[in-house]
């Protein structure tokens, strides 16, 4: 009887081929469509063809949004590696010249959230690029990362010192979609 399998493929070879397809081709073809209904998330392919988010995953933790978003934008955890968040949480008493201390229970809860959503875990292109250029460093400021410096090298000190901006840490002054984790150049409006 003539086999339905073309090219005289034996079951073992077919299984191999299917596995190869599952491993390599399927992610390229469909990616991971858990939030494809969110149209704001443009998707790009990295150089290997895997789907990536442009944006960093937005903050989705109420404690983090409240405690860390009180004085500054609640920076998305994907903007720094886990080791940076750990270092920061270990010294909230000396938080860039301010005291940002919190009860130990809050610090522990924040640690879980930040480590689980740090740059290493992010599919975002921005997070990926920040991480790749760190080369093992443990920055405490996002503005110290080599990728950040590279992306902002055309912004003069005079621009930053404008009343409407003040500091590089004021992401949302120019990145109108910073809160959504979208730092794409297309959404940048530098205020006067």
């Amino acid at each position, binding site marked *: 009887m003539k086999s339905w399998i073309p090219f005289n493929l034996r079951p073992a070879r077919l299984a191999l081929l299917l596995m190869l397809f599952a491993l390599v081709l399927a992610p390229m073809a469909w990616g991971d469509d858990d939030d494809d209904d969110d149209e704001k998330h443009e998707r790009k392919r990295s150089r290997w063809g895997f789907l990536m988010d442009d944006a960093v995953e937005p903050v989705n933790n109420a404690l983090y949004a409240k405690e860390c978003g009180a004085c500054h934008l609640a920076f998305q955890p994907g903007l720094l590696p886990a080791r940076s968040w750990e270092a920061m949480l270990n010294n909230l008493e000396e938080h860039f010249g301010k005291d940002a201390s919190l009860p130990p229970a809050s610090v522990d809860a924040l640690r879980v959230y930040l480590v689980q959503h740090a740059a290493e875990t992010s599919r975002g292109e921005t997070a990926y690029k920040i991480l790749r250029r760190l080369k093992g460093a443990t920055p405490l400021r996002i503005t110290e990362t080599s990728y950040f410096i590279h992306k902002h090298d055309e912004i003069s000190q005079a621009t930053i010192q404008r009343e409407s901006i*003040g500091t590089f840490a004021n992401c949302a002054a120019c990145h109108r979609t910073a809160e959504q984790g979208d730092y794409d150049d297309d959404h940048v409006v530098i205020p006067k």
Partner: protein
Amino acid sequence: MIQRAWTFPIMLALAFTTMGALPVAGKGTPLTPVAKKLLQHYAGVAQKEDSSFAGFEATRGRELYFSEHKGKEGKMQSCSTCHMRDPAQPGRSDVGKSLLPLSPAANAKRFMDEEEIEKWFHRNCRGVLGRTCTPREKGDFIVFLFSLK
């Protein structure tokens, strides 16, 4: 006659303790239950620390609010740096984040949560003054803020 002799100092002491609070309660914003509770607590501790303590004063609280201190980065700073000269206005953190007004007259959510209040006193006293605040300072500060319309 003997009774009269000691009612006078008591009345005087009562007048003194209410003098600090009365004008405030009269014209400002009514104290929240949490603020009331904290003031009682701070007054108790302040009395223990200093027997000459005679109640909180809005004027001292105002002085504290506007007093300038050298920050870690060398810049002069006060409570009013972020919470504005008029605390009824929205504030602005030094990294540009907008803050809800500190004045309870402008923002009914202020002084409703004891933990929040102590958290911010602890952080901001250390951040601005470089040390924690005394119960008397905290009481003066609260009385000052509630004296505002």
